[in-house]
């Protein structure tokens, strides 16, 4: 894994104001074990949430959260507070999620596979549904989630970080290893893809 703490797309290493996460990380580097426990406690929820948004609720979330913090442990000595702590942490989550996606690819639990409980809607099925189908609100949510899951990885992570984690474009660029302009373009393309895939449902929902 590329060490997220040692690479920056902008190549800058300007000192940043220490946020709570960075402060805890530095305290832990200096030998304060309680700081690590606090770090896990305060950031576990966001890591878990980001994994759910990016990989879906069926991913082995607890294992992945554990793996994220194991990678934090392994990066302990190399950590430098060059960006917001969450940016550094989200980059670990992203790298791990991409690995996970690639591992799952040969035997995918595909979104298009028939789902016994019927909770998943395939994107193609969603697009085929006409306005007259009068979908319930929960179906729309499922359809949107399915459409997000079908986005390419970088588009998906950029959209999730911007929309649900309220991360600024510059920080998303740090997570994905891209310039800010490229992030804008990614998000634009992600939205365009979603608009296209969900157009029948969105048109039904207009007013």
């Amino acid at each position: 894994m590329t060490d997220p703490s040692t690479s920056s797309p902008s190549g800058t290493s300007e000192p940043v104001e220490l946020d709570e996460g960075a402060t805890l990380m530095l305290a832990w580097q200096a030998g304060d074990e309680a700081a690590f426990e606090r770090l896990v406690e305060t950031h576990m929820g966001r890591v878990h949430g980001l994994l759910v948004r990016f990989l879906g609720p069926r991913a082995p979330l607890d294992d992945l959260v554990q793996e994220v913090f194991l990678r934090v442990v392994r990066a302990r000595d190399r950590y430098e507070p060059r960006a917001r702590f969450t940016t550094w942490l989200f980059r670990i989550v992203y790298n791990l999620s991409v690995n996970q996606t690639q591992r799952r690819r040969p035997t995918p639990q595909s979104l298009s596979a028939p789902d016994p409980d019927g909770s998943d809607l395939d994107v193609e099925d969603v697009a085929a549904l006409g306005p007259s189908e009068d979908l319930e609100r929960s179906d729309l949510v499922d359809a949107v989630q399915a459409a997000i899951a079908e986005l390419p990885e970088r588009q998906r992570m950029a959209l999730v970080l911007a929309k649900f984690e309220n991360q600024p474009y510059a920080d998303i660029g740090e997570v994905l290893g891209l310039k800010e302009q490229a992030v804008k373009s990614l998000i634009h393309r992600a939205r365009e893809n979603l608009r296209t895939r969900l157009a029948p449902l969105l048109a039904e929902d207009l007013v």
Partner: protein
Amino acid sequence: MNSPCQALRAALLDALDRGGAPFLDPRHQEHLASCEACRRLCSEEEALDALLVATADSAPTGSLDPDAAARLLTRLRADLDRALDAALDRIPAPAPPSPELLQRVLEATRAEREETLPDVELEPMPGGSRWFRPALAAAAAAVLLTWVSLRGGAALDPEGPRLAPEDTELLAWLDVLERWDELEALEPVEREALAVLDPGDALLLEWGDAQ
């Protein structure tokens, strides 16, 4: 979107499909009076319809005026964008992780955390001087540097190294370092005394002990 809005919208689309014939029955009129969103939709659709009719009249090929088409597309895209944002906002926040996960993560990382513990300073011995170890190391380094500088320019002896007086002193210091464990076991007073003795005194004391 609630059902009166849906009914009105369906009627509106139906009317537009049929060429804009009057579609509003009293039920829809009543709803329009109370629903700002539907009034806005109706006026927008009427304006769009008028635009399409005007364009059809003026365009010999039957295609839309490029400007009008662009405006229409822009409007549709903006509407879809708003609807997309509304749909994204409807996705509920993920459920929080289970309370046991914190303990699980801490347990799973414990072994690796212990491996990466930073060097912890030795606790100063009770009554001992915390400067003893650095002072001893500095003294050894000084002797070593002196020895190196004295021997630096000399040619190599083909018969091998011979002990000079300063070599003996260096060996005495190396001996001290080798016996570090014994020194650690000394009383603080003894160690402090040893730290301020010069090597000659130390050797003398050692010789006295041996007798």
